[in-house]
């Protein structure tokens, strides 16, 4: 059986609540539990092999390019965590079925829980570091959803956001660390990473990697100083806290440390960092747990403290310490999940979690009291419960450690303080809830919840006791196999037992219990003492930091973006200038040394015209018509330049485009103010002149640098293949319709889209129609001069003939669809200009958008046609035919494609120009029309 099934099962489980919600709460809950239970069963079938230390893997290729595989593994460590995730998870799902009130959206809740379960299972089963990281992020996201489940409450939203921010930031750090690990180990596969410990430890980047990985682990496992999100995550529904914040998510960081122990562990840096942070967290958490008033607050800080304990044990790094760490992971999960469930029950039944308002519940809720007492005893480390066993082991290890050198005595001392506080806060919780006399006035109506709600907790509590009594039977094989996965051959033979004889650890345990009782008696006094210390609310500092960050971002944005397009333009140009300048400055010599060609007088003249026109149109920009005329001389000179330098196709295209765009721009002048106001400061002009000349200089330099160097060209391929491969001797046209036909197809699509876009923009246009020119002379009312009418009519057939000629010869001589299309468009446009829109439209009732679309479809069909014959898209075919009267003629599918190009160009060009022209007439497009029949009736 493939291991892939296990995460797949839990993932499928996210759908179950939705499918079964209609059956009611109870069946839906039970159905949701099916998937995790099957997954658990599947894992348990491997039990004998896992106990022997076998590693089971299965892998599927996913993204081999980045080394990301869907690889899963099952070993002792995975087994330990999977039992917690699936086993405790199922119990908590069952519990949640009772916990949620009837009107709450249980579908969403269960789906989120299953999603989270999938993520956790993914982390512990991943056999690939990148995959593990993906699941790691998924736990952050799904826990965000779960903590914020009661989204109407602001503390839930804030808590969710805070936990996402902290664990998400840690996740990013972890990703960086993982990428570096993968880089050094050469692979992300777990096996490779775990066996390249030597390589990693000797790498110069080891401290950095370790820092990044620890950032990820410590944020996730709420280690001091990143612990602050956990108490705020208590805003989550209690089943979430019982699941995420006791047994699973917060253990993910610890899991990571255990998993990577073979790769990163066994250095003094590792040991010291873990031990210091673990020790700090252990005492800090215990102290604050003692001061909390909220039941869940006590448990949250106690969790922080116990997580610190495990990290400390991992840091001590002796074989027995690691065994103790693994054992405590199990024990803590069992008793803390139970305690959270109990807190949920108490909250559920009494309506409060404030320890000062509770009391005397022992008689009212005997079952809840039992399970709380059992698991509380385990948390406090009182024999004969499981918590006692792992704490004894910790004390033994910590007494003999020399990790802090001369300060080593500090470790047992701090641990003793932590253990004492742990006893104290447990006693406080149990005493405050069940034994103390109630001080609050409200009448008590609490009673034990339905069986289904306390049974999951009770079973776990009993398990705590059983593990304490029979550790060698119940826990030792599991812990042994987990230890094999973490420390391999150095796994010691260990013996869990309640009685190790009279020794120092036992004495310390007794001290802790006695001290705990003493502390509890002096709780009010200690509380006052704590109140003297400056209170620091993590939430407020966090929110303040977030607000500061937002403000800074806002400030920066405002600096860069003040809403002026001109400013953005200038900034963009400036960066372009700097980049190009940097590039050019790295060249030794601007000139590449190629022999320069001589200049003749004609070229000089044309160049002069261009320079004159360009500068002129810039200087005269306030006299718009003059500026436009200058521009048109430049355009014509450009087409002459193309003629001179052997590009007849370009010259023809430029010429016809020039005509069309001049008509367009003159039309535009009609709709725009004739003269802009003069409001420009000298400074602005100076700045723009500077930018423009710098840019021009760089372009000139760049162009010169290229022109004076020999370039590598792929021209030969096209020149050789044009006739045999494309069946045409005009190489430019063959490239357009054949070699690079797909590009051309994209380009005519853009053309058609631009046309359609302008068509939309012209709908419901408010018009500014000037009645005369600037001097106040009114426009002539005689719109269509007779001579123009006659000439236009006379020219039309000729122009169409030329267009057809240019089109047909295009494959072999300069010409082709683009040019022919433009000529046709201009010829037709002439009619509109000479006779007006109405007259022409009567005689030429063509919808240009349709023409453009037909053109596109023709081109597309030509391309698809080659598929029919089993060739790739747009493969061209051609042959020579003998046609009577005409002679030997070549027919190519490329010609069909060119027809598509032709039609698109005609359609798009006329769509733009005719519509713009028609805006002034009664036939201007209106919104109503456009909604109903815009695509069909382009010209109405």
């Amino acid at each position, binding site marked *: 059986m493939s291991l892939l099934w296990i995460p797949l099962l839990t993932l499928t489980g996210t759908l179950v609540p939705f499918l079964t919600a209609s059956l009611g709460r109870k069946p839906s809950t039970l159905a949701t539990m099916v998937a995790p239970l099957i997954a658990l069963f599947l894992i348990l079938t491997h039990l004998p092999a896992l106990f022997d230390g076998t590693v089971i893997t299965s892998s599927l290729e996913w993204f081999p390019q980045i080394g990301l595989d869907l690889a899963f593994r099952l070993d002792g460590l995975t087994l330990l965590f999977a039992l917690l995730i699936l086993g405790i998870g199922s119990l908590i799902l069952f519990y949640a079925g009772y916990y949620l009130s009837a009107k709450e959206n249980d579908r969403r809740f269960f789906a989120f829980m299953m999603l989270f379960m999938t993520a956790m299972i993914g982390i512990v089963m991943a056999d690939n570091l990148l995959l593990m990281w993906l699941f790691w992020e998924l736990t952050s996201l799904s826990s965000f959803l779960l903590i914020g489940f009661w989204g109407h409450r602001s503390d839930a939203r804030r808590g969710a956001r805070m936990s996402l921010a902290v664990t998400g930031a840690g996740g990013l750090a972890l990703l960086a660390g993982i990428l570096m690990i993968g880089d050094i180990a050469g692979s992300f596969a777990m096996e490779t990473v775990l066996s390249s410990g030597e390589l990693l430890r000797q790498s110069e980047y080891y401290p950095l990697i370790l820092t990044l990985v620890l950032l990820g682990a410590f944020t996730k496992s709420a280690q001091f100083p990143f612990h602050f999100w956990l108490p705020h995550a208590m805003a989550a529904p209690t089943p979430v806290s019982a699941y995420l914040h006791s047994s699973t998510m917060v253990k993910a960081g610890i899991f990571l440390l255990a998993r990577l122990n073979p790769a990163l562990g066994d250095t003094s840096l590792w040991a010291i960092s873990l031990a210091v942070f673990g020790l700090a967290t252990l005492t800090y958490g215990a102290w604050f747990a003692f001061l909390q008033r909220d039941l869940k607050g006590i448990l949250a800080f106690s969790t922080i403290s116990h997580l610190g304990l495990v990290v400390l044990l991992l840091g001590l790094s002796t074989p027995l310490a690691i065994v103790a760490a693994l054992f405590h992971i199990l024990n803590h999960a069992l008793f803390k999940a139970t305690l959270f469930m109990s807190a949920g029950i108490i909250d559920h039944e009494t309506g409060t979690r404030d320890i000062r308002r509770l009391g005397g519940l022992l008689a009212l809720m005997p079952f809840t009291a039992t399970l709380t007492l059992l698991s509380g005893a385990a948390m406090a480390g009182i024999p004969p419960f499981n918590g006692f066993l792992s704490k004894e082991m910790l004390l033994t290890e910590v007494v003999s450690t020399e990790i802090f050198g001369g300060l080593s005595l500090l470790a047992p001392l701090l641990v003793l303080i932590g253990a004492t506080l742990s006893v104290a806060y447990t006693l406080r919780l149990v005493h405050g809830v069940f034994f103390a006399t109630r001080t609050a006035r409200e009448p008590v109506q609490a009673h034990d919840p339905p069986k289904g709600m306390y049974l999951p907790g009770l079973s776990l509590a009993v398990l705590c006791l059983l593990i304490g009594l029979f550790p060698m039977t119940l826990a030792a094989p599991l812990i042994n196999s987990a230890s094999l996965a973490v420390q391999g051959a150095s796994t010691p033979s260990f013996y869990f037992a309640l009685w190790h004889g009279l020794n120092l650890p036992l004495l310390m345990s007794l001290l802790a219990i006695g001290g705990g009782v003493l502390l509890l008696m002096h709780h009010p006094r200690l509380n006052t003492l704590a109140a003297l210390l400056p209170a620091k609310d993590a939430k407020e500092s966090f929110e303040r930091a977030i607000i500061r960050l937002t403000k800074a971002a806002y400030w920066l944005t405002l600096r860069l973006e003040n809403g002026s397009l*001109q400013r953005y333009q200038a900034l963009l140009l400036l960066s372009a200038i700097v980049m190009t300048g940097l590039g050019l400055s790295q060249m030794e010599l601007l000139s590449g040394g190629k022999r320069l060609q001589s200049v003749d007088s004609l070229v000089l003249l044309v160049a002069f015209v261009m320079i004159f026109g360009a500068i002129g*149109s810039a200087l005269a920009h306030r006299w718009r018509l003059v500026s436009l005329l200058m521009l048109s001389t430049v355009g014509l000179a450009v087409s002459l330049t193309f003629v001179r330098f*052997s590009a007849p196709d370009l010259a023809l295209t430029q010429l016809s485009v020039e005509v069309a765009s001049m008509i367009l721009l003159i039309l*535009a002048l009609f709709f725009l*103010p004739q003269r802009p106001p003069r409001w420009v*400061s000298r400074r602005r002009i100076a700045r723009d002149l500077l930018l423009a000349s710098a840019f021009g200089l760089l*372009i000139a330099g760049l*162009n010169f640098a290229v022109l004076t160097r020999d370039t590598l060209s792929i021209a030969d391929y096209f020149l050789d293949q044009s006739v045999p491969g494309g069946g045409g001797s*005009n190489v430019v046209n063959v490239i357009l319709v054949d070699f690079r036909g797909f590009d051309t197809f994209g380009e005519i699509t853009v053309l058609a889209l631009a046309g359609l876009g302008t068509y939309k923009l012209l709908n419901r246009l408010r018009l500014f129609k000037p009645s005369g020119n600037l001097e106040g002379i009114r426009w002539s009312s005689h719109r269509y001069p007779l001579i123009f009418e006659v000439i236009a009519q006379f020219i039309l057939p000729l122009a169409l003939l030329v267009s057809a000629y240019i089109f047909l010869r295009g494959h072999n001589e300069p010409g082709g669809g*683009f040019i022919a299309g433009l000529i046709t468009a201009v010829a037709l446009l002439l009619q509109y200009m000479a006779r007006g829109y109405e007259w022409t439209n009567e005689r030429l009732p063509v919808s240009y958008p349709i023409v453009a679309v037909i053109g596109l479809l023709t081109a597309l069909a030509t391309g698809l046609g080659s598929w029919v014959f089993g060739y790739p898209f747009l493969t061209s075919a051609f042959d020579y035919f003998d046609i009577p009267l005409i002679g030997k003629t070549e027919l190519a599918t490329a010609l069909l494609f060119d027809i598509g190009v032709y039609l698109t160009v005609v359609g798009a060009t006329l769509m733009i120009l005719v519509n713009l022209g028609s805006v002034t007439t009664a036939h201007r497009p209106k919104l109503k029309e456009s909604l109903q029949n815009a695509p069909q009736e382009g010209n109405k």
Partner: protein
Amino acid sequence: MELLFSLVTGVLSGSGIYLLLRGRTFSVIVGLTLLSYAVNLFLFSMGGLHTDAAAVIGASESPADPLPQALVLTAIVIGFAMTAFMVILAIRARAEFGNDHVDGKQGDEGVN
């Protein structure tokens, strides 16, 4: 020749940029057209400057590089489409905002 050619592209793009930085839509469109002339010439020249060497098989001994020509040909047509779109956008903006400033609001263009 090469020097003159690069001088022309330089002047064209410089003038285009100056116009592009103006505050009125029409100047921007003219500037963009100028700039596209310059860019087309620049791209075209990547194949080198050849005289009497049209890229038609059989027309000359050593034809010019046809690839930049094909690229520039489509660039010219698309440039036209884009200019057209800009023009209509400018007209529309003027109709909506009542002025032809690029930001859509009449402002003191000397200050920012």
